[in-house]
């Protein structure tokens, strides 16, 4: 079947079109869907686009920021109020990919992609999803666990709390190639503190399981402690707990397990 492109002015209509047609894919920034079409993926015969302005809105007015699913990484980098997300945004692709790839699309990007989502997971983001039956917000963790079933849904936006300070959120992508490369491991840590003690740490890892996951043992190791060498070493020592990486062209499961603690320690201690 030839490919049909359907463009909607309203995301609700786009969502309906997606959920009613198994061969339909949402175009987003095009980096996933156009590649699939270029490579002869004949399972796609409808491409759905939405021009709804809501999809490209950025709201930074309050301590909770909302980013439309259609916002590109290039736009995030241009937004001074989103400085805490600049490191993850810059870690994606080259400049051209960043001008195309979107926050929403990144949620669906298969390994070794999806680095921005690691940051969102550490920031405990919520994902607004428009399905055939209406819109709802879900925690990003729940979204990722059910991602396979979300392919007929349309993500509208993500939202997260702004970290209290620049130091409270850290991000690092370990890649073989510089300055741009696929992820061997991607790490993000949100480290809220009160009275000098970590409270409610969230550490997220990319390329360490089928989807982005949290390093819960490492989070627990930091909880209630000052971010000193002892706490950092304790977290690093258990960084590999609960991970299930696989071999791929960028690194083996063995290697990822070996170095995840090293890189977590370096991230937490602020070392290169």
């Amino acid at each position: 079947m030839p490919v049909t492109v359907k463009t909607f002015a309203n995301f609700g209509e786009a969502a309906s079109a997606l959920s009613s047609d198994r061969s339909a894919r949402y175009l987003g920034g095009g980096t996933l869907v156009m590649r699939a079409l270029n490579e002869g993926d004949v399972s796609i015969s409808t491409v759905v686009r939405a021009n709804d302005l809501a999809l490209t809105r950025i709201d930074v007015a309050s301590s909770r920021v909302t980013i439309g699913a259609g916002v590109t990484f290039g736009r995030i980098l241009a937004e001074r109020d989103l400085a805490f997300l600049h490191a993850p945004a810059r870690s994606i692709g080259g400049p051209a990919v960043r001008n195309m790839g979107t926050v929403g699309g990144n949620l669906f990007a298969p390994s070794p992609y999806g680095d921005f989502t690691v940051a969102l997971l550490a920031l405990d983001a919520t994902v607004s999803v428009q399905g055939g039956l209406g819109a709802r917000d879900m925690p990003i963790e729940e979204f990722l666990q059910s991602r396979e079933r979300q392919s007929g849904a349309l993500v509208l936006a993500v939202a997260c709390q702004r970290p209290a300070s620049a130091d409270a959120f850290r991000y690092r992508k370990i890649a073989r190639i510089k300055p741009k490369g696929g992820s061997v491991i991607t790490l993000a840590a949100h480290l809220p503190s009160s009275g000098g003690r970590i409270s409610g740490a969230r550490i997220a890892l990319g390329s360490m399981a089928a989807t982005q996951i949290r390093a819960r043992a490492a989070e627990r190791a930091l909880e209630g402690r000052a971010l000193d060498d002892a706490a950092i070493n304790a977290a690093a020592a258990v960084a590999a707990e609960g991970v299930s990486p696989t071999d791929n062209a960028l690194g083996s499961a063995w290697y990822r397990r070996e170095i995840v603690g090293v890189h977590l320690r370096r991230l937490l201690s602020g070392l290169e």
Partner: protein
Amino acid sequence: MLELRKDIFADERDDNLKEIGKGTQRQDMLGHVTGTSTYFDDHKLQGMLHLKVLRSPHAHARLRRIDTMEAERSPGVRRIIRGADVPRNLNTLLSLINFGKDDEPSLAVDKVRYKGEPIVAIVADSPREAYEAMAKVRVDYEPLPAVFDVEEALKPGALVVNETYPKNTFIYHDVYDHQKLRFGDVERGFAEADHVLEQRYQMSPIEHAPTETNGSIAAPDTNGRYVVYTSTQALFFSLDTCAKILDVPSNTFHFIGGTVGGGFGGKVDTLTEPLAILGAMLTGRPVRYQLGREEEMQFGSPRGAERIYIKDGVMRDGRIVARKIRAYFDSGAYTRLSSYAVVKCVAHLPGPYTIPNVHGDVYCVFTNRTPATAMRGFGVTAMDFALECQMDKLAHLVGIDPMEFRILNAYRDGDMKAHRREAKNTALIECAQVAAEKAKWPLREEVKRMSSRKDGGGSRAAISPTPIEPAPQRAAVSQQRTTYDRAPPAPIHEPPPPAPPPPPRPQSPSHGATRFSSVFGTRRR
């Protein structure tokens, strides 16, 4: 930063030249920066069709049935090409120089021997329609066990990869399963040596990864011929290969190329031209066949893997007295050019050093992986890696500075090389001296004074007595075993006894291709 050291070898050069030696701008640079350099794909032909190839998902399988009925009826399909449509569906690239037997089909017929082997070609109005038709081709595979390791493939009873070579090795001189190098007596050398070091090296395959993938456009020309725009690295090589496979006179084709988006050896194999031309012949329309990036990476031929064993005997004073090498080139499922690389590798032994006793056995081995081909440094890159890592270990072992160790053993003018030709025009010592100077690597004065033009020849020009039959294994003498020593695997299988090569048989090609020359006693069948 590049510095011309005109002071060195100045007496051998006439530098009184006008154009030579100048950094003149490239003739093609303006075209490159304006985007007007014309690559094969920059030819826009009216009514052009697109060719896509269905590839095997199995590394080794029997093809029980290929059903293209539904695909033939798919919208936009102009023609489906199967193996039976290819006039001469068996070829080996170097048949053009009479080296090796035809062993590779353009489209697989009864068996596939590597993952990605082409089975059916689809010519359609658009790439999308070709892909849709491809999804409708039904192939009934009977998966077979596969072999991926060169030494596994040589074990007795190993499955046969390529029936043309039932022992899974290319055949040299009609009798040997490898190419030999025999110069002096390595066993005697090892017996005399203060240290013996045996090591194993492995290089995995490498993809050429040119930014332009392999491809070609073939179109009926106004005079009954076919014009072919191509990314080939070797215009007549590809032209004559197509003439043979399509069984037509070579002047049927007008090949145009010359501006290519990188090759590095990966555009010699003539992967796309025969099918693009056949598509044009069968449809009467221009046909474009360009590999996608994933196809190029996974199924475009790579630089083949090599496994290399080196055993060296070295004296305390740093002289290497014996070097024995056994190497396996992983050719993948078909020969392509690996057979040639083996001989080039043998010629390269033992590296740029004068060693009185050298013994080499190099094998071209078939496995169920993508056929390998030429790449920049063909036949030499992996061997140089092994040799130079080995040199570093030897220097460490005898406690000599590694730069001085190389200069000490470097070949010089007048020395005899292991392939029994006199070394001339050598310059390894000077390169080492200048590199050391650049890197501020300290060398002793006497080493700085050494020269490629001094102290060569004489006893270094001699060929030591060389046993015809391999000498029997001697009992281990008082050699130091070292921390590098690892138990080397025993030889996998003995070569057949030497036999004289049969007399050459005259042969004339029945196809239209030009026969360039004749190499070895091995002849195309």
